């Protein structure tokens, strides 16, 4: 395998990795604010891709409109997940939200399966056609757009959390929910907002990767799990950590696929996750909190 292939794999890996990171940002947002994880986020990713495909390619609506509607639906869907599958259990202090979000993700995936059909569709994109050269390597516009979008959104999120009132409210709830409520911050609405945001992130990732993979009802599950692994690897309590985790996972996977084939690459990713968690149970960049009894 020549250097060319590895370099190309590196770039593709960085792209996919930033998408893992983007979805992982969603996990981070919800976990930071409510200590829960939305396991239906993979379904949100799929929803973004499927809706964009249906509206723009099948029904020939203008792309910007399709994207807008698709992302709004993703946001609404994730808000719905929070209300039905997370809020009642958090109120009871139970852990069942994990399985409940899995259940909802399953339902959505199968509803889409019945309406959209079993066959994966190819999503063509003009971005794939536009290409340019970078130091002897042929890149297309999508390969550049993806990491840009991923990091851009991460940056905007971090800035918004630090600088806007809403963002600061989210951080406040994350750090001390009771105090935040006493200060007048409506924690329920904020948590719903966090979930909706996470859903939008996943939707963006979905429609960005759609031209690279195919669009199908099952495209979200494994991607969602890998993004979760990225979040955990990096440390789900830190935004930079999850992005770094995503990049790490994406690049490692791409390099391994080029070197030893896709099955070993998968085994390695999952095996690595276990090993890392065995050594650092809070993730690579996670902060080991000081326990008190």
């Amino acid at each position, binding site marked *: 395998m020549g250097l060319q292939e590895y370099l190309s794999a590196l770039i593709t890996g960085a792209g996919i990795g930033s998408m893992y990171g983007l979805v992982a940002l969603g996990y981070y947002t919800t976990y930071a604010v409510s200590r829960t994880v939305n396991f239906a986020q993979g379904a949100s990713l799929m929803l973004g891709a499927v809706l964009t495909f249906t509206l723009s390619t099948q029904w020939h609506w203008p792309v910007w409109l399709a994207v807008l509607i698709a992302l709004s639906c993703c946001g609404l869907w994730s808000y719905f997940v929070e209300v039905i599958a997370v809020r009642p259990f958090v109120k009871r202090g139970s*852990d069942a939200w994990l399985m409940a979000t899995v259940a909802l993700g399953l339902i959505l995936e199968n509803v889409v399966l019945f309406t959209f059909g079993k066959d994966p569709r190819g999503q063509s994109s003009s971005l794939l056609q536009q290409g340019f050269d970078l130091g002897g390597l042929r890149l297309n516009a999508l390969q550049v757009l993806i990491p840009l979008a991923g990091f851009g959104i991460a940056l905007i999120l971090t800035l918004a959390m630090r600088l806007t009132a809403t963002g600061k409210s989210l951080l406040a709830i994350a750090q001390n929910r009771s105090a935040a409520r006493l200060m007048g911050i409506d924690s329920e609405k904020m948590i719903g907002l966090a979930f909706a945001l996470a859903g939008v992130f996943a939707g963006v990732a979905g429609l960005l990767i759609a031209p690279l993979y195919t669009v199908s009802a099952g495209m979200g599950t494994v991607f969602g799990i890998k993004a979760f692994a990225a979040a955990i690897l990096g440390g789900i309590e830190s935004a930079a950590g999850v992005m770094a985790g995503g990049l790490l996972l994406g690049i490692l996977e791409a390099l391994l696929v080029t070197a030893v084939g896709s099955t070993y690459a998968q085994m390695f990713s999952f095996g690595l996750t276990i090993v890392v968690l065995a050594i650092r149970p809070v993730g690579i960049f996670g902060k080991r909190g000081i326990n008190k009894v």
Partner: protein
Amino acid sequence: MNTLRSASLIGGLWLCIGSVAVFFINDYQSLVLGTVAITAIVGVGLNVLMGLAGQTSLGHAAFYSIGAYAGTLLTIKLGAPYVVAMAGSAVIAGLAGALLALPALRAKGPYLAMITIAFGYFVEQGIAEWKDLTGGWNGIMNISRPMLAGAEISGLQLTWFAVFLSAVLIPSYAWFARSRWGLIMRATRDAEIAASALGAKLLVIRVIAFSLSASLAGVAGSLFASMNGFISPESFPFFQSLIFLLMLMIGGVGYAAGPLLGALVVILLPESLSVLAEYRLIFFGGLLLVVLLIAPNGMAGAAIKVGQAFSRRLANNRAPLAQALAQPVSLQALMNDHGGARAAQAELTLKDLGITFGGNHALTAVSLSALGGLVTSLIGPNGAGKTTLINLVTGFYQATQGTIKMNALSLNGLSMAQIGRSGLSRTYQTSQLFGSLSVLDNVYCGLLQGRLWGSIPVTSRHQFCEQLLHFVGYQGCGASPAEGLAHVDRRLVEIAPRVTTPRSGPRPRRDLVYHPGRYSSSCQRAVILAN
């Protein structure tokens, strides 16, 4: 025991139904019945892991598939007889479970979930990749029926055997939950830190829980292979792990009959409502959601609640402890009654003890000496470091400087469990009780010191625990679960097992390291009496 009796009844009923059914069903129905049975077997294992040890596994299909492949390959490649192959699959799957317990030890919540998910995928890909052994994605076909005494076992007989196994496992779970191992497991689930500080070795317990649950899944897997005649990595997707979890949650986590009820619903319902077959997955998702929202303790839990509402036995269970002793009892007399020896004089010495958190020097050069037989008080304003000191001495934190000695034994670097077993015990700012265990079991668990083996030289476990509770002044009911107690009672139940050690021999009597809290005066009286 109530639960054991009802579990035996349910198991017996299931066995009867299965034994009768095999005479009337055709091949396909036999397969369905057999699938219910083996799903229930996996469920019992998962119940041990989730219900007793409190660890959620989203990758249990991995053990199921390991068992299936191990059993099949042992028969095909090594020509092992069926029983040996099944035992082999249990052992191999159990080893895999033990392996998973290691990284899972320190991970909690979503991190633990991720480890189990990753493990599931790792095994699935690994089996697919090991083409020479497993046939890769093509799987293994034409798996012949097992032979017993020269004759081939039919599908019906195999199904009956699976039903028999699952019927036996249901009361076995109830028995195990009440046994010493089960109690200690439940203690680590309810209050991990308190259990460790009392002497429970978390790693050993988790390894046992994972291995046991993996072994059962492995046995079920090998039965699955024989029943189906064909296995491939695609027979055990991630979704299968979800089905197992779903089954247990619908049936009721922690209840002996939970796996059976869950398996019946999860396997039979889609079969009987064939119109739903295509929408099976949506149905499952919806069902899970409904169950979680309305009946979080599953069908078994809901049934028990309904039963309790009708039963008047509730009143009897709430009887207070028998007031067998009229006058206050001395601790030494109590010990003598139950075979304890006179304790040697104990001394706890701290020299130049210090700990730093990051840049924060929480404690610097603390030296003190606490003698047995005396009450030593640590007094200081908020933030002085009193709790930190107690955490240091009992092993929750590791000191960055200085030494801790109890008599001649150095406690530096020892784990919480080791320190607990050496005789030092403590209470907590927020009392850490084993909420799902009864008050008596809480005391008993404390006395066990997390030891899975060995005997406790007490003449009658309940009597000793009752007397201890009476000694500290607890006047409530012994059988009520600890989580419902009022604050003072929580303190008393927390103190009771820490007052003494039932082991005889030249071991120093436990020093009490109390955390100051709001004590009632009767508690303080107990402290003074004890010392």
